[in-house]
């Protein structure tokens, strides 16, 4: 189909404008983080950092408790993702491979659970945690983050388990494996990419969680990075260089993971389209 010159130009022009619009905030975060303060506080913005400085990163990293909070965030995120993966693997196997009464109902339950409004449940959770004397602890955070990522982990893993050909498992059992062995030796290795993808999504959820840690952990050394970052700008009195450096440090792991993951997801989509 032939298109007029304008017809060919406007989609590209719009795409360029949109690209700039979507990327600019991310770019500006990194750019500000690397600029010397003199280039940040100017009447005319410096669009491209020419003098690169690491001063702001130093300031963010040397902030009180920074490494404690990194450790808190990593601990909470990794443990909740691992625990939910283990629990979900059993559940997903049952849901994908077995027929039993109430199966459909359970799947719907997990779908519903996935949509749970955690943001609005924080008062009740606060009372529960307080009554068990667990405020300012990483355990309740880990436990509830596990639950936040569990339903999606189950539903996604169920798809990955179902995608492993039943025959592989059966031939392993013919060769003398028990069902548990067949699962461990045949299905599990094939599930590895699925486990990776699923856990990365869980990782993002737990790493970003804000309302619950806001209400549960008031003690400075028991917080996680999102809470720290939200208070950073106030604490450092409008030091935008340091604030953007802190934001960059917080966002970088997620940006890398997400881009890595999204490529797989998108290519998966198109594969699916071809295969129908």
């Amino acid at each position, binding site marked *: 189909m032939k298109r007029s010159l304008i017809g060919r130009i406007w*989609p*590209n022009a719009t*795409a360029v404008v*949109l*690209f700039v*619009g*979507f990327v600019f*905030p*991310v770019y*500006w*975060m990194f750019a500000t983080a690397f600029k010397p303060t003199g280039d940040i506080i*100017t009447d005319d*913005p410096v669009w491209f950092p020419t003098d690169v400085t690491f001063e702001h990163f130093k300031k963010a990293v040397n902030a009180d408790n920074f490494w404690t909070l990194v450790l808190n965030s990593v601990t909470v995120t990794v443990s909740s993702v691992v625990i939910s993966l283990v*629990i*979900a693997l*059993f*559940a997903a196997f*049952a849901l*994908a491979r*077995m*027929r039993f009464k109430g199966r459909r109902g359970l799947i719907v339950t997990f*779908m519903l659970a996935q*949509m749970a*409004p955690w*943001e609005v449940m924080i*008062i*009740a*959770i606060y*009372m529960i945690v307080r009554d068990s004397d667990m405020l300012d602890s990483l355990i309740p955070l880990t436990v*509830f983050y596990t639950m936040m990522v*569990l339903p999606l982990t189950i539903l*996604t893993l169920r798809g990955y388990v179902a995608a492993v050909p*039943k025959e592989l498992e059966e031939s392993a059992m013919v060769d003398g494996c028990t*069902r548990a062995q067949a699962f461990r030796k045949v299905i599990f290795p094939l599930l590895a990419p699925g486990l990776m993808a699923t856990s990365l999504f869980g990782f*993002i959820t737990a790493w*970003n969680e*804000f*309302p619950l840690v806001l209400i549960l952990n008031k003690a400075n050394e028991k917080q996680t990075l*999102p809470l720290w*970052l*939200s208070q*950073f*700008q106030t604490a450092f009195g*409008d030091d*935008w260089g340091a604030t*953007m450096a*802190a*934001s960059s440090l*917080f*966002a970088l792991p*997620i940006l890398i*993971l*997400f*881009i890595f993951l*999204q490529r797989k997801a998108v290519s*998966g*989509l*198109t594969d*699916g*389209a071809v295969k129908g």
Partner: protein
Amino acid sequence: MSVQTEGTDTAGKPAVRKARVPAPPRGADGASRASSRRGAGVPYLLLLPALLATVILLGWPLVKNGMLSFQNLNPRQLIQHLTEWNGFANYREVLTEAEFWHVVERSVFFTAANVVLIMGAGTLIGLLLARLGKKMRLTLLVGLVLAWAMPVVAATTVYQWLFAQRFGVVNWVLDKLGWHSMADHNWLETQFSTFAVVTLLIVWMSVPFVAINLYAATTTIPRELYEAASLDGAGAWKSFTSVTLPFLRPFLYSTTFLEVIWVFKSFTQIFAMNEGGPDHLTETLPIYAYVQGVGNQHFGVGAAISFLTILALLIITSYYLRMVLKQEEDEL
């Protein structure tokens, strides 16, 4: 909010779901039925941990929320661990307060504005993606993915900086464009402009999910349909309304519901931006519940507000799930 992480939800996207979650092979049923005769309890045993976790960590807080909403729970009762039931007093207080209805109205308008913008922009960008050449499409996809991936709190701080009163880049641009009164504008000073910044933030981070999945959905439309349409003499617009749109309709419906749910319960963007300020004027229901319950230490009242919000969300969610389940009945 996990907004980007919310992007991971697969239930709402027929196209994604088909690709990532293939239906179990048909032959599986017979074999597993045979083996389940031997161990009928096995599936339940495997599901037990997940079910226990759901009941204790999700079910119990929901029940607890309901119970709290019928209690008089202020700092005194909190400190002395007293349980004072007060019937519907919290609900009476909440529902007769003009402030609550203002918040409800605000939440509805806020949600509506955001969802309309997200769906509108997301659909247009998704269709644009389908029309672009390969290189340009990849470029735009990278931009969208970056915005999608930005952690909420990081994105909120960046927007605070973009819209900062002094040295903020937005004010500089507006000033250069000739709107000189904006040179030193404080965006977080009024209700409307604070909402404008929050809305831009939410739309910016939510559009990629809609656009990318809509684009993916368009790639699943069989080419033959377009050929048939053009053989029948349909123009570009006609083939759009008679082929593209009907094909995308289920996706558009379910995504709209999903966005309504996500925007309605959004907490982090509003709270981290300005804590519901100026003067409580940007408090939506989740923020209002938090401020009343935790900020003012009226936990019972806060729980009542939460419970009403949860009920509203539950109704929307069940409509959404009914729709999704109807769309993929064969997959369960």
